[in-house]
């Protein structure tokens, strides 16, 4: 649909040349304000994590801590005894951060690998192979996207409990790793757009469908596969509700659950803010790292999820 206008013409539109109109300056100011509002909480997290608890009252609105310290990180990570930690204003609570990080990584990795693989297999069959029941089944898969999580979580919890899988990694990943309507739908759309000629040539040479899938279709689909892997990864990394229901044991907690339980261990009246913010800062790190390393891919993946 963009064929009517060539990019060169599009770039020469008048409002791309005028830079300092009042409207543009106002828009820049507004945009900059939004960016500050976005970043301010993150900055306050880091600043508070570097503060001494004793200074909380006097320096709560300061931009920089006057006496920065790494003590909060140390006690959250458990490099201090509970007594030392309490002496610094903590609750004695700690996060086994490395274990929670490991659990989160494992949880996310298992689901990304399995879900994307199974979705790709199913999507290929729906896009290219003829088999009885294909259309009904695909409609059901897509329909499963309409069922809100609040309907399935009770029966799924009971199932996982009856199977004796509470507090296990298997119980945590089970509902996500086999099927996700959106992943199947999204990959099928892409597979449909691959020219059939490529496969027909291979078929004439006697290749099987499995061979075509793994040697023709998948190599052509690296970008959409990466997109769906990225989206699944982000969602699963942030998933709180299901792991919270099935794996409350400290040994199995993923990061969001560990952070929530760390918070609920601190006193309600006088929360251990420096400790909480140190834990928050550590938990934010992987996401910042992801953006720094794969920024463009992340942005494009999220955009793909909606507009296409």
């Amino acid at each position: 649909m963009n064929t009517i206008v060539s990019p060169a013409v599009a770039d020469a539109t008048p409002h791309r040349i005028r830079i300092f109109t009042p409207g543009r300056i106002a828009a820049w100011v507004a945009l900059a304000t939004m960016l500050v509002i976005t970043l301010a909480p993150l900055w306050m997290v880091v600043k508070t994590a570097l503060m001494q608890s004793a200074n909380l009252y006097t320096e709560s609105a300061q931009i920089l801590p006057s006496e920065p310290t790494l003590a909060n990180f140390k006690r959250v990570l458990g490099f201090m005894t509970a007594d030392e930690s309490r002496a610094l204003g903590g609750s004695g609570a700690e996060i086994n951060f490395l274990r929670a990080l490991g659990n989160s990584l494992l949880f996310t990795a298992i689901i990304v690998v399995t879900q994307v693989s199974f979705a790709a297999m199913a999507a290929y069959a729906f896009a290219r192979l003829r088999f009885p029941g294909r259309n009904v089944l695909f409609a059901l898969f897509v329909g499963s996207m309409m069922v809100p999580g609040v309907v399935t979580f009770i029966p799924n919890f009971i199932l996982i409990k009856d199977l004796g899988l509470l507090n296990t990694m298997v119980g945590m990943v089970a509902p996500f790793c086999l099927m996700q309507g959106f992943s199947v739908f999204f990959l099928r759309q892409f597979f449909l757009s691959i020219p059939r000629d490529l496969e027909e040539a291979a078929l004439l040479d006697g290749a099987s469908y499995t061979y075509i899938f793994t040697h023709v279709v998948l190599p052509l689909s690296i970008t959409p596969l990466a997109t769906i892997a990225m989206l699944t990864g982000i969602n699963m990394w942030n998933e709180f509700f299901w792991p919270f229901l099935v794996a409350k044991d400290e040994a199995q907690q993923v990061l969001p659950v560990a952070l929530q339980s760390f918070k609920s261990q601190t006193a309600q009246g006088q929360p251990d803010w420096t400790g909480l913010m140190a834990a928050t800062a550590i938990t934010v790190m992987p996401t910042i790292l992801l953006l720094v390393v794969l920024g463009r891919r992340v942005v494009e993946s999220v955009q793909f999820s909606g507009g296409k």
Partner: protein
Amino acid sequence: MTPAPSAPHALSPTRRSETITAWALVLPAFIGFVVFYALPTLRAIEISFTDWNLLRAPKFVGLDNYATMLEDGKFWQGMKLSAYYVVLNIPLQVVLGLFLAVSMDRLTKSLFVKSIVLLPYLLSNVLVAMMWLWMLDPLLGLVNSLIEGVGFERQPFFGGVDQALLTVAAVNIWRHMGLVAMLFLAGLQNIPRNLYEAAALEGASEWQMFWRITLPLLRPVMVFVLVTSVTGSFQIFDTIAVTTNGGPLDSTRVIVHYIVQNAFSFYKMGYASAMSMTLCVVMMIYTVFQMRVMKASENDLA
């Protein structure tokens, strides 16, 4: 291997192998669909007709749970709060997201800016809730220091009966407006630039171009954003679980929180399931209605 002349209804060997391959490829996803979506949905309907605390065997009670629900003030309160939350949340989220998208489209292609805009969405609800608990703390939070600094009274935010839900909505807007902006931005980039050129030649103002070209052509993205963000907001739970846990005085006990409370604090599996089925029906009606009203399937650019 000469191809046998097959009867029209019998599958040829190639067709049969195609069917077998297809089912083998679909099988894992099919198992997942049956075990974790189809059967649980049916089971949720079944459970909703029972009285069940997980300890004794479920007892069939017919429509009792649904009848109880209709007379339960807390159920209606939860539905009302959820609807209220959606109304607080969505318009501002969409307007701010649209504004961010249009500004970015005109001002900058910077990946750095896009990354910052998207960052809140990439953080878990739990993390976001934690940050804002601190920012909005009545005693020491930065926001209250600023409010006091300009001469207003400190606010309780999450602790105030009449503003807790508003605060949760504000936090959710902060987390989601960047996502909405990115989706709109993708839509904006699909609008042919020559439409704007032609409009500019005829003397249209920026404002007219926005209302006459940009907004109508963004309709497909708008439908997507409205459907997903409304149904998503109706299911808000994480943020509330971390910040207010339903309080103060039930002022943030939205419907999903009430359902979870019934299931896992009171162990009323039947009652919780009846409410979740009701919520599901409400959301499906909304989705169909929204897609009809906005004619989601029509494409203005085709």
